[in-house]
């Protein structure tokens, strides 16, 4: 069958009523789904704004020379920052991604509009309850709310509402896939990006079930109706807390494939390998709850070793596969369109002024080199002894969740604004530099935070001068300097985040309508991937075969990527073993 038959299929399936045809991509976009995507995206950006304001207050407090907030407000705002960013910003955006992938990318309709709106309402109500409890000082328990620290019951209830709402939307996503298949809105298998979103959705179910399993008993505990064991709490809570970051990973990788396709015509090297890697995520990634329990008294070494390693690092293998297939797909996409010179000409001549592309590259590089390498290393059972609850931990996860996931989501937004909101991207010159500002700031922030943590500087700590403590603690003076650099990086990244919020809000609410895109003519406010779509020539299969024939050895058709992944592997090996060496100097402990 050819695609032409598919097109007539859409027409019969009612592409007219309730749909519009995207002038840029030719896709049939369901208007009801589009409205839902918009409200989730807006809720996400508002959460990002709240979280970013909190971030500025926090870095200005941990910068000892400024030390802005009083102790109680520092811990309160730290809780606000965690919930607003890690839960509300990220999950609202992920719900938008799921709705987008299951409707727009499949030319399909949203199958349960009323349920979707009710779920969104529940999520919104939950988020507002949690924010109200935290800002009013009735939930000074930080993001993790470790029992037996106690918050107002309505805090836990708010989290439950939010999680249930998200779970319902995930259910709608699955329903949409079934309906799209039955209504034959697409042919063959779902695209790889949708497959990645499906992975995220399955992990979301696992995650949110953990959330229910821990927050419902904790809610009852806060009402005095039952007991909750602090160690069991930590184990199941991290089944929510860490696994939710794995929804991010799967969604982010899906967005990497999407942005690659939109900006430079990335191709899928091999569907089997990429899809198998997603399956590895589903099977093993939820074991990462153990990363937080490596120096806990409740679990034995065998449990810790098996779980922290995702059963022999199978989820790390998955990420290392995507870490190859994504850039190799980008390289091949460029080479197929004629950028065949040398090893890295494809990279040099890529559209670095397209914020969708620069976001993709920074997300990929910082997630892999900083977030990935530090994460695997500090998640090693014994190495965790020199890491647990120091600044190395937030140093790691800001490299994954912020430089990785949030950066990828920002890059996707630069395409969602014209494609879904049908507006030009406002402050276009700002948008072009925004990924550089944000990723550069985050890189300084995460590296310096990791460095400070290696001195044993604790995370979640108001005053490391210990001015009110009964015994003096005097960190190496260089720590003050490092924390000032942390603040500098944090403020730069926050400026990037505010710029992003300003661009998103201005574009969506007061933006200039997109109008007609003239192919081949650059337009301010429209990413290059839309004005100069990276379409492949009709003879692309022949070109692909020729590139493969010309490079039968291990360097293959994407030799630049081979060089890059070996640089990555070398960095990984060095960092990993340096940490073992440092560990070996300590007191004997066993």
């Amino acid at each position, binding site marked *: 069958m050819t695609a032409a038959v598919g097109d007539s299929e859409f027409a019969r399936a009612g592409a007219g009523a309730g749909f519009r045809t995207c002038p840029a991509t030719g896709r049939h976009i369901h208007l009801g789904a589009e409205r839902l995507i918009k409200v989730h995206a807006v809720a996400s950006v508002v959460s990002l704004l709240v979280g970013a304001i909190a971030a500025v207050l926090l870095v200005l407090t941990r910068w000892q020379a400024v030390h802005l907030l009083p102790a109680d407000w520092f811990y309160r705002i730290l809780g606000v920052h965690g919930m607003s960013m890690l839960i509300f910003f990220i999950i609202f955006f992920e719900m938008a991604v799921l709705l987008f992938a299951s409707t727009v990318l499949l030319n399909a309709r949203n199958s349960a509009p009323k349920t979707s709106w009710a779920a969104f309402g529940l999520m919104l109500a939950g988020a507002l309850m949690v924010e109200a409890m935290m800002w009013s000082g009735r939930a000074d328990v930080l993001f993790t709310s470790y029992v037996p620290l106690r918050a107002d019951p309505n805090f836990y209830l708010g989290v439950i509402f939010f999680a249930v709402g998200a779970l319902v939307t995930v259910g709608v996503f699955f329903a949409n896939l079934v309906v799209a298949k039955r209504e034959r809105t697409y042919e063959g298998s779902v695209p790889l990006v949708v497959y990645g979103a499906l992975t995220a959705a399955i992990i979301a179910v696992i995650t949110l079930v953990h959330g229910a399993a821990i927050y419902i008993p904790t809610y009852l505990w806060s009402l005095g109706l039952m007991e909750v064991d602090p160690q069991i709490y930590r184990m199941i809570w991290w089944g929510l807390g860490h696994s939710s970051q794995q929804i991010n990973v799967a969604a982010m990788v899906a967005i990497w494939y999407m942005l690659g396709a939109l900006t430079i015509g990335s191709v899928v090297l091999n569907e089997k390998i990429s899809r198998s890697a997603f399956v590895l995520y589903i099977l093993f990634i939820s074991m990462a709850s153990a990363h937080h329990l490596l120096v806990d008294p409740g679990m034995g070494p065998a449990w810790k070793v098996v779980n922290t390693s995702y059963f022999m690092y199978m989820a790390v293998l998955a990420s290392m596969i995507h870490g190859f297939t994504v850039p190799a797909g980008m390289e091949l996409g460029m080479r197929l369109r004629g950028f065949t010179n040398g090893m890295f000409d494809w990279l040099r001549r890529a559209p670095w002024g397209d914020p969708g592309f620069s976001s993709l590259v920074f997300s990929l590089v910082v997630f892999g080199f900083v977030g990935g390498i530090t994460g695997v290393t500090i998640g090693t059972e014994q190495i965790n002894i020199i890491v647990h609850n120091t600044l190395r931990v937030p140093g790691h996860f800001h490299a994954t969740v912020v430089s990785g996931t949030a950066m990828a989501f920002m890059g996707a937004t630069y395409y969602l604004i014209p494609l879904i909101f049908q507006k030009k991207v406002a402050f276009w010159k700002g948008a072009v530099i925004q990924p550089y500002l944000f990723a550069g700031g985050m890189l300084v922030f995460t590296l310096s935070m990791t460095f400070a943590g290696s001195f044993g500087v*604790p995370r979640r700590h108001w005053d490391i001068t210990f001015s009110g403590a009964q015994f003096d603690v005097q960190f190496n003076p260089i720590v003050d300097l490092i924390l000032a650099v942390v603040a500098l990086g944090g403020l730069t990244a926050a400026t990037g985040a505010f710029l992003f919020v300003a661009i998103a809000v201005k574009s969506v609410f007061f933006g200039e309508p997109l109008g007609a895109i003239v192919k081949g003519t650059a337009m301010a406010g429209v990413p290059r991937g839309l004005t100069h779509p990276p379409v492949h020539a009709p003879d692309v299969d022949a070109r692909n075969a020729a590139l493969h024939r010309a490079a039968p050895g291990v360097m293959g058709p994407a030799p630049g990527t081979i060089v890059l992944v070996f640089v990555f592997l070398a960095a990984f090996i060095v960092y990993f073993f340096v940490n073992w060496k440092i560990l070996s100097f300590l007191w004997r402990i066993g």
Partner: protein
Amino acid sequence: MHTDTHTGLDSPKGIWWKPAHKSERTWVGIAFAWCMVLFAMMPLWHWKGGQNPSGIRSRTTPAAYGARVGEFIKQYQTGTDRGWPVVTPPPGADVYLAAVSFNWYPILRLQKDVQYTLHLSSLDVNHGFSLYPINVNFQVVPGYDYGLRVSPNTSGDFRIICNEFCGIGHHNMVGRVIVDDAPVAAAVSGGTR
């Protein structure tokens, strides 16, 4: 237009379970081998390495653990520092340290190159044991007794920082551990300042 070469936004047509190129297979193989190295290091370190978070782990209650700490102090107290008991246990002894918002209790006086079993537990909420400045960190959970066999290989006047948020006074929670090069007479006061 239908081509086999496609992006992640296109539906692959027909069977997509096809052999991968040699370069891709090679990378997957190398990544898999590296993952096995990552994994093997952990059991290897349990066997040959000197730093493991295994410990002797048991259940307790805050009341029972508090009583045990009291008994330990009564048995081996050698002095006071700012009103806090300084305890000098004999080599090889079980040492009991309690975390309670916002203190570490009691002050410990240990000997270099001698093994102790250091018990950690909390009398209220979660705390974080962080030995300053050598940066050794363990989670302290109420209801659980974490007995770690430790042998100090450096002498000095150490601090215990709390690095798990335990309430608004969290940042003031600091304890003290002294490690001597040689045995000290039991009558000597524990405080060096």
